[in-house]
């Protein structure tokens, strides 16, 4: 019977199954400090979503004319608005620090024509752009520029 293999020989080994216990996730996985920051990071999604709609609302009012705009602007001083905006600020800074400090430097593509910069340089660049943009926007909105 010299020659080729048996037809059934290429089949993967017939491993016998045994009864297994289902995978275990430690009951308190979300309690671990590291996981907690990760979940908080995810939770900022809710804040961002609402922030987006708030700005939509403002732009909408702006489009409606001067009265609507002034009402909208003054309604912003409602404590609930201020509290939410404070939360947004905290979220934004948290997201920025986590993403710009940890993620972006890692995500540089390692192939292709774009050179890989040292992580420190990338971080500095991103933080620099972030601060500059914030500054310019603040100055414009506060009426200092333009």
């Amino acid at each position: 019977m010299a020659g080729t293999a048996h037809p059934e020989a290429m089949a993967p080994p017939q491993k016998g199954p045994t009864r297994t216990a289902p995978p275990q996730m430690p009951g308190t996985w979300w309690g671990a400090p590291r996981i907690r920051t990760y979940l908080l990071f995810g939770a900022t999604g809710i804040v961002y979503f609402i922030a987006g709609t708030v700005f939509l609302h403002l732009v909408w009012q702006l489009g409606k004319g001067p009265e609507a705009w002034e009402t909208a602007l003054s309604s912003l001083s409602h404590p609930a608005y201020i509290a939410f905006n404070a939360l947004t600020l905290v979220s934004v800074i948290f997201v920025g620090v986590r993403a710009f400090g940890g993620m972006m430097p890692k995500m540089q593509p390692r192939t292709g024509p774009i050179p890989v910069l040292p992580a420190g340089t990338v971080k500095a660049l991103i933080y620099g752009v972030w601060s500059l943009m914030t500054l310019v926007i603040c100055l414009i909105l506060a009426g200092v520029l333009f």
Partner: protein
Amino acid sequence: MKHLLLILEPVIWLLFGAGLALGTMLLTGFVLVVGLAIPMGIVPPEALNYERAYGLASSFIGRVILLALIALPLWKGAHHVRSLALDFGGAERDGAVGSLLYLAAAGVSVLGIIAVVGL
């Protein structure tokens, strides 16, 4: 549903990434002034009286920035909320939850476009 999401995944991820990076950068300044400084009276509201606000917003750059300011955080938010839902055991519902969230983000984005274009 899940299949459609899969095909769209690169786009969604790009929008999410843009929301994470650009959205964060834009939001910081806007929240600081429009959300906090003006309502709290640190900056006089005249800085954004109707004429000035409309002038800034209706310029081409202003429109682009406003659109980004509205739409990008929505996508960042939708994507993050979806993964949050997944982390708390929503694997089977992921397709539905994801579609719902992205539809919402898309819907509000369209309103955003209407608002910005109609300025």
